[in-house]
């Protein structure tokens, strides 16, 4: 019997590999020549590869990443996008599984917030733990643009939104927020790879800066730190896992 999200076994080709995390996220895969869109499916990680449950084939399949669709022009290009405005309430666009932000924020406009919210969730998706959206990463970022960001950062963060849109247009012929989830994921996934492969480009610099802030905000959030204890009450330096878990559950030494 093949495994399903409700019956998490392994397909024939994977039965001897160790199981990784399983989550309920949106994802895509590229099989052969065609793109197959899978929304709100389970994914898991086996031996260095992402696997997604394909309903059509009723089996787990490895995700292959798109490599060559983002043009060099877009990566080297620079487009200035100046927008101002304040935020927040969202509506799920079921056509492309995009959480559309309906109001402007304090710094970013609604379209920018929509894009950023989606990108942050792709970077840090909800799995069995909260994702970037749960941790309010982009609303916090929007506020930080006024209280933390200097002129250069403000420009950078605006710029990266415009650049991602340019990237979407040159790759798929549409602005980012109108793309299917599969395309959006591949776009950001490829952008991440390229940004670290060529750190000298302007796009790389801006993207990595955005990624750093998304990670920083997420990993300093309450949602990402459920075990954080402000007042440990003491220190122990040699505990078994069971002893540690007991103390953590108690919340005090």
């Amino acid at each position, binding site marked *: 019997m093949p495994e399903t999200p409700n019956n998490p076994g392994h397909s024939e080709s994977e039965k001897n590999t160790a199981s990784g995390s399983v989550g309920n996220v949106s994802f895509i895969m590229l099989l052969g020549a065609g793109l197959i869109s899978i929304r709100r499916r389970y994914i898991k990680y086996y031996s260095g590869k*992402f696997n997604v449950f394909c309903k059509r084939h009723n089996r787990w399949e490895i995700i292959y990443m798109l490599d060559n669709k983002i043009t060099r022009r877009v990566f080297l290009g620079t487009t200035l996008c100046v927008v101002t405005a304040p935020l927040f309430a969202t509506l799920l666009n079921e056509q492309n599984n995009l959480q559309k932000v309906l109001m402007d924020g304090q710094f970013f406009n609604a379209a920018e917030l929509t894009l950023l919210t989606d990108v942050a969730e792709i970077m840090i998706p909800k799995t069995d733990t909260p994702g970037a959206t749960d941790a309010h990463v982009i609303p916090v970022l929007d506020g930080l643009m006024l209280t*933390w960001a200097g002129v250069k*950062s403000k420009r950078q963060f605006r710029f990266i939104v415009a650049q991602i849109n340019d990237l979407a247009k040159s790759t798929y012929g549409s602005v980012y927020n109108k793309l299917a989830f599969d395309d959006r994921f591949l776009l950001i996934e490829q952008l991440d790879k390229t940004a670290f*492969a060529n750190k000298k480009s302007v796009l790389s610099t801006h993207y*990595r800066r955005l990624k*750093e802030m998304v990670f920083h905000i997420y990993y300093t*959030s309450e949602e990402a730190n459920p075990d*954080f204890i402000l007042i440990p009450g*003491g220190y122990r330096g040699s505990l078994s896992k069971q002893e540690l878990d007991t*103390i953590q559950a108690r919340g005090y030494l």
Partner: protein
Amino acid sequence: MSTQQATQYDVIVVGSGITGGWAAKEFCEKGFNTLVIERGRHLDHPSPEYNDMKTPWQLENRGLATELYDEEGRYRMLKAKKKTLKTDSIQFFVDDKEAPYSYPDDRPFMWTRGHQLGGRSLTWGRQVLRWGAKDFEANAKDGHGVPWPISYDDLKPWYDHVETFIGVAGNKDGLDVLPDGVFQKPWQMSCAEQSIAKKMAEKYTDRHLIIGRSANLTEPSAEQRTLGRIACQARSYCARGCTLGAYFSSLSATLPAAKATGKLTIVTDAIASHVNYDEKTGKASGIMVVDANTLEQRSYRARVVFLCASALGTVQILLNSKSKTFPNGIANSSGVVGRYIMDHFTGAVGMGEVPGFDDQYSYGRRPIATYIPNFRHEKTGNVNFTRGYGYQTTAGARPSSGNTAKREGIGAKVKAEANQPKPWHFKAFMYGEMLPYYDNQASLHPTKKDKWGIPLLHIDAQVRDNERHMISQAAKDIKEILEVGGCTKIKIIETPKDQHITVGNRTHEMGGACMGADPKTSVLNKWAQAHDVDNLFVTDGACMSSCATQNPSLTYMAITARAADYATKLMNQGIL
């Protein structure tokens, strides 16, 4: 135009940090009306400025200081030191743009300051290590600097006195080079640290890994509880200020103790410009201050003046205190004021995994590191340097894989791999003893002044060949120690000989008004009393004649308490 305050105090203490607080406590408790002058703002304890009760998500800007500081060129030296400016404690550090100082372009000096009531005692490292007999003998023995006029035995009862009051968690290790003191229950070593310590003990007789000695309470005394201080809760947010008063600061301990006597007056936002000198009596008559906000000048009078403004702050005041008798600064007939500036330095870092403890974990955030005391007081083997070094070390918490965004990868896989436990990891940072060089000097800038009209301090100090040789040997030594300790994947980082080492980086700046027996070669006598001016004492880091390898604050405090005791005796006898 200046005004003179009507009140004549018994004692003026300039500075409210770790030594100023001690001077105030000792004088007040002995019945003397004492004025503490602090250049920074007033803070209460506990203060609304403390951030120790905030979670990571409650810190302003998620802990990131505004980038406007970068754009406006503010806090540049602090950023060079800490890499990232953070909102948890930046309020306790000085912006060098607002309070500038000077250094040669090719030899930047790092001067980390805290201008608030309590000074740097709010943010200090809390590692309190006694100096040993050999440390006080070093200058006389090898001829560098000015021989110390005091020995360990002179300070021993004052170390006891200070430790009893501040509260020190430490283990009685029985080491001559690091004498034991009055200790509360020590912090635990982790399983990894215990393993290394045991293996070192099997191999060496002179090299020891011990738990640090920390000014964090583990068994608060009745006196400490009376001051509102309770046991440390292992949060390790000390630099944010401690609402619980669990670590020692002048704000939580010495100043409240002084205040309780009814003899203490505190004036904040008052920048000591110079010591007033009375040509007729040959004594200091008081202190001239500039109001930090209004720029108004005021003078305060007292029978005795204690300078506790931090090593370099005190040097600046001394040099700026010019008179007919002392055209080059008060108490400077020797010309030594500003000379022999020192700091600890690093330059050799060792690290490695500690295998065999993958099923062990830590809990809590221990507020102190472990320590390998100096084992190179004597020149042995083929070493080509004088003095030695210790290592500040730690494997107190099992590291995690972290959650960095600085690597390729996004999505569920990256998230799943974040913050996972990694093997125990031990790190050791060399802390070397810099020799007291006459040419390492702080002086007044000939033309530049700050916004309060005080000449900038120009600091020109550098490490030299002796320190470079130490770094080379320290790198070899720590590699061997890590191997003996059973570490794997050992990595040694040694600062290249041509790379600048910024003096001041360890925030242990010392010297500038050294103690010594000879008035021709030193500024202060064995009581930290100016040779030239009987009622002027300097008991902060400026008084140090050498810097040893241990963290110096405990020694400053002991010297201060001893000097205050001596001064009160002279005052009671009517000599001062």
